[in-house]
């Protein structure tokens, strides 16, 4: 028998390509469940804050801030990644997933230093999101101002 020239990690990577993944319909339902629950929780937060006497727009701003905080904290504790294993896009798409996309690389690249590691790499996903969002918003404003539609 020929000797195997692969490390266990390489071997796993090799066979993973051929291992059938979860069926797509299961991914769909899991993403629906997790994403729906996060959004439902967000709505519940907004309604509780309004019951406490907060005006509607402030309540939704504060709810967003709370969700971002929870997303960041759960990522720090290692819990959000486990939710992500199950929920896929259901955990990536809500604002908590945006917080996760900032914290994960920020922790991961600490070893490369506070400036070029954490400080720079925390924007690896947030950077493109903000750049394309800001430029699109600006262009829409420009077009609307010029053509007054």
């Amino acid at each position, binding site marked *: 028998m020929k000797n195997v020239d692969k490390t266990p990690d390489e071997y796993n990577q090799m066979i993973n390509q051929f291992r059938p993944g979860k069926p797509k319909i299961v991914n769909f339902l899991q993403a629906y469940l997790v994403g729906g629950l996060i959004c439902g929780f967000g709505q519940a937060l907004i309604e509780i804050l309004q019951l406490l006497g907060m005006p509607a727009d402030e309540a939704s701003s504060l709810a967003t801030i709370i969700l971002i905080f929870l997303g960041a904290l759960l990522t720090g504790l290692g819990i959000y990644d486990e939710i992500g294993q199950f929920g*896929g896009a259901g955990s990536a798409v809500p604002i908590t997933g945006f917080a996760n996309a900032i914290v994960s690389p920020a922790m991961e690249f600490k070893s490369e230093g506070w400036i070029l590691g954490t400080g720079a790499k925390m924007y690896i996903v947030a950077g493109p999101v903000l750049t394309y969002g800001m430029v699109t918003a600006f262009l829409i404003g420009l077009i609307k101002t010029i053509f007054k539609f």
Partner: protein
Amino acid sequence: MLMILKAFLVGGLICALGQVFLDNTKYTPAHLLVTLVVLGCIFTAFGVYDWLLDFSGAGVGVPVSNFGYILTKGVLLEAKRDGLIGLFKGVLEVASAGISASVIFGFLVAVFFKPRK
């Protein structure tokens, strides 16, 4: 209670469609988030996003496409008030709270926690 159910149904649907995007293309979650934010901007331009927010609240308020909404909302508000200079002043006006919170909490959590592997 009805709004919570609607938020679940609409928000879940957006996430599930995002999963379809990931499962059937070679794109990464980063591509998905950028696409959603740009779509959020465009839907806001045509007034669709306001309608969706009235209908399902956090169902479209929590998905990241809401960043597109608040960025565009700020631009349109300020553009109406200040004209051209408002296009620049407005971008981060409504979005400021969410973006600041993301950067500040994101950084602080990264300072105090270690990655688990």
